[in-house]
């Protein structure tokens, strides 16, 4: 059993939680962030990667639109390394009514979302795959943001300001003395150890799980409706700017270029359990049809992976519970002191990734009020580690880094003669000689990127590594890199063979979750090759089966 003490315990390591822990740490509070899984493994990692310009909400939710426009600039500045300034387009497709576009321009102007109308010819010049029948086009400041990179950036910033970040640590109890929260008890899942944190304040940022956390402290009826949405990553960048359909927010109205893929999304269906989100066949077909409206021939492109995320929507009694798209996407801050008579805890539910920083500020302001502290928010003023130079992400950046590494390789790495001598003498190899090997060719992930992160997080699963390194996220979906990564983890990661084999099994199983719902076309061909490698050549199904599967 471990004990800790912190001014503030933040529960839930998505974007909101990471933003909150950074905010409180920057205001000088001691803080601990807890998540039952990895950072950004819930809603934050399961979205389409859009950094909103605000354009999506200019008609349906003008206030959100303005916030998005403001926060877009801030996030681009403080999380430069996670953001790509792709720009965005709103296009009226042949199937869409023209009237909405007038409402849209009016709304955009009112809500101060920067926009310019461009000719359809110019839109088609910028994005040649676009439907040539588009009737109108507007350029906006949409960008894309890697949710994991952003969350880890905020977490590392918080750590630099003294906060502790504990992943795979599930909250089991929240202790009260009278009506005052005094401690949080959690279970460190990887080390099977209890952690007790005495504290003065808890901020519940558990997203779709926020109701369950509130329940633990006796604040009931915090109903969070998971609005399930599916997303499909299409191989390659079918577009290089974000393409939105200029219609009232609906299913499949956006195509977002992120890293090496383009992501189409999304749907919106009420789910029961945020832990188990289906990717139904009919919704997949619906996305393909929507893709066809934006990019003719979309169905012939290759889908590489699909996932479902749960929007945490606080239930508003004014609308039917099944209609999740029209629930408030603005944030709801629940003050459990006035609502439930429990002091020292607030919950924040809902919101958008783009405005995560603002949400964090607002909830920490509420906390400061309650604690009678007056400490200003400074999160917009300082870039997170890795973003200080202000250089935003570009698609070719790993290529550039690898080329640089290759260029310097001959100067700094052992010479051929040294290696030959070493080989003759049977010496173990120098790692420097092979640091620049590309372990995952699809995503240009080097051996050193893998070994460095393993040194930092020795108990990481291959999926934990994937979220930060993009291991196995390209077209081969782990066919070539997962055996290599397993081998490297065994050689350099200090894990034993049972865990290494278990990690490989877990990774293959987890990749399949996002593969089988979208398996068609070229990805079937890839899967047949991958199966031939793993089940055929490696006969991985006849390795010793573990007594219990590795899950963490």
């Amino acid at each position, binding site marked *: 059993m471990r004990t800790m003490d912190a001014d503030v315990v933040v529960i839930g390591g998505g974007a909101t939680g990471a933003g909150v822990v950074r905010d409180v740490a920057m205001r000088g509070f001691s803080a601990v962030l807890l998540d039952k899984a990895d950072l950004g493994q819930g809603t934050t990692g399961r979205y389409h990667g859009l950094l909103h310009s605000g354009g999506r909400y200019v008609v349906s939710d003008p206030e959100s639109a303005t916030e998005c426009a403001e926060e877009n600039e801030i996030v681009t500045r403080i999380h430069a390394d996670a953001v790509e300034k792709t720009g965005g387009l709103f296009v009226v497709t042949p199937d869409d009514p023209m009237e909405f576009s007038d409402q849209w321009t009016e709304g955009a102007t009112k809500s101060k979302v920067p926009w310019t109308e461009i000719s359809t010819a110019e839109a088609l010049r910028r994005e040649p795959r676009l439907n040539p029948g588009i009737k109108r086009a507007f350029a906006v400041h949409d960008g894309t943001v890697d949710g994991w990179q952003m969350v880890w950036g905020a977490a590392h910033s918080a750590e630099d300001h003294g906060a502790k970040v504990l992943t795979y640590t599930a909250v089991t109890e929240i202790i009260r003395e009278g009506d005052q929260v005094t401690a949080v008890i959690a279970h460190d899942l990887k080390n099977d150890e209890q952690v007790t944190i005495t504290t003065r304040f808890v901020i519940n940022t558990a997203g779709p799980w926020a109701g369950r956390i509130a329940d633990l402290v006796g604040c009931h009826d915090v109903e969070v409706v998971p609005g399930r949405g599916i997303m499909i990553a299409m191989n390659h960048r079918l577009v290089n700017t974000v393409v939105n359909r200029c219609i009232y927010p609906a299913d499949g109205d956006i195509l977002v270029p992120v890293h090496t893929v383009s992501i189409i999304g999304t749907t919106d269906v009420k789910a029961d359990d945020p832990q188990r989100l289906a990717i139904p*066949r009919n919704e997949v*077909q619906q996305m*393909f049809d929507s893709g066809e409206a934006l990019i003719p021939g979309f*169905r*012939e492109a290759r889908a590489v992976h699909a996932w479902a995320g749960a929007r945490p929507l606080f239930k508003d009694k004014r609308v039917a519970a099944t209609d999740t798209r029209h629930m408030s996407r603005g944030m709801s801050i629940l003050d459990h002191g006035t609502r439930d008579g429990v002091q020292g805890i607030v919950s924040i539910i809902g919101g958008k990734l783009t405005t995560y920083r603002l949400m964090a500020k607002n909830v920490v302001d509420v906390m400061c009020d309650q604690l009678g502290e007056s400490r200003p928010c400074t999160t917009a003023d300082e870039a997170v580690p890795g973003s200080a130079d202000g250089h935003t992400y570009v698609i070719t950046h790993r290529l550039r880094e690898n080329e640089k590494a290759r260029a310097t*390789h*001959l100067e700094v*790495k052992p*010479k051929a003669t040294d*290696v*030959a001598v*070493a*080989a*003759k003498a*049977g*010496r173990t*190899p120098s*790692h420097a*000689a*092979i640091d*620049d*090997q*590309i*372990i995952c060719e699809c995503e240009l992930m080097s051996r050193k990127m893998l070994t460095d992160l393993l040194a930092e997080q020795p108990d990481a699963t291959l999926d934990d590594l994937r979220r930060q390194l993009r291991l196995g996220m390209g077209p081969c979906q782990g066919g070539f890199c997962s*055996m*290599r990564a*397993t*081998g490297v983890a*065994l*050689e350099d990661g200090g894990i*034993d*063979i049972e865990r*290494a*084999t278990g990690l*490989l*099994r877990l990774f*293959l*199983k987890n990749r*399949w979750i996002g593969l*089988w719902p979208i*398996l*068609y*076309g070229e990805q*079937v*061909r890839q899967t*047949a*090759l991958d*199966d*031939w*490698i793993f*089940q*055929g*050549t*490696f*006969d*991985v*199904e*006849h*390795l*010793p089966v573990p007594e219990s599967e590795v899950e963490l």
Partner: protein
Amino acid sequence: MTATAIPTTPTWAGATPHVVVIGAGIAGLIASLRLRAAGARVTQITKGLGGIQLGQGSIDILGYTPDRVSAPLEAVAAFAAAHPAHPYSRIGVDAVRTGVEYLQQVAGPDLLVGDAEHNVNLPTAVGAIRPTALVPPTMVAGELHDGLKLVIIGIAQLKDFHPMLVAQNLSRTTLPDGGHVTARAVMTDFEPRPNEFDATGLTFARALDDPKTRRTFAEGIKALVNEGETVGLPAVLGGEDHKAAFAEICQIIGAPVFEIPSLPPCVPGMRLNEALVKAVKDARVEFILGTKVTGFTAADGHLVSVTASTAGHKREIAADAFLLAAGGFESGALKLDSHGHPLDTVLGLPVKLPDGVDEEHLVTDKYWGVAQPLFKVGVDVDESMKVVDGGSPVYDNVYAAGGVIAGATRWQEKSGEGIALGSAVKAADAILASLPVVAATGLAASSPLAASAERN
């Protein structure tokens, strides 16, 4: 004929082929050879290199039923009887035996040893114990038995082979017949070319074709081996000159040495592929690489011709019979479209789904412990390998062989080459029997030697 001459022009140039073979994996290559040896004029069209080099480089017949199989030919008969939808139920054990023997004759003992009656258990690149039937001579010493002492040696510059993964999994596994091996892992350095730190297996294989390089390599390996150990190395021990390379490496190391195949391309598979393609070309099969079938003409239940497209050029090829040996989903011969309909992309033949499975359930959410029904989809054939739909021939002259035939999950059963060889023999023999000209000369001539006799 000198060794450098590559005969590409068939002796029968100008004449219409008797048979068009589509695909150049093991099924297509063996069928072409057998047809040609019996005197048929054969045109072979292939989109790319065949699948031999994408697999494990050995010859599988039957490895799991799902129980581990030790006597594959014997097991084929019972397996076929128990699985009437499986290709083996149409192919039959005799054709598999004939096919394997035929391959052995063509390949010779420098490329394949062993027999179809016995499986051997070989270590894989993740340290699993895999059954297979015929193996390259470079893998023989890897046959696992109780008390074997192994040293598995990796090369840091080759990222596709991780010796700890192999050695430690082997060490903790009980052998199929009981007993254990002991295995230790060593990682060493070796640059196949100066300053090359991220090389493919093929680069190593080519480097080790050079006598000076392979001597340096073998000396380095020798220093890592203890008394009484058998040496497992990645399957890169020589390319074109593999026979001399392997012999010299073994001789210098002075201990039993074997190769372990890893990620594709598989160097032992490439050696076999090159030998078979050369045999096909030497036999004066018209071998057209880089060519897709993009159309066909048919009349009255008879396929008249196919359109072969090479880059921008199209050519109509008429023939008496056509053999589809283009592989399964892995090659693109079969496809699942975005609506979930499976189809044959080459000739548009009807495909058969596994019994009791509809299009919506071809893929399941389970990764471990199941065979995806999708990969059992393929064309249906009768006992002569003629493509049928609901029991009746689709055309009276279209046959199928290898991975395109419905009913098997080849990589899980470890049945890929056995199905390919057996169906190639059956299809070739049925086609020969249907060709009036060739039938007159009889099938007795159908040995690989017949082709060389004609050439001389």
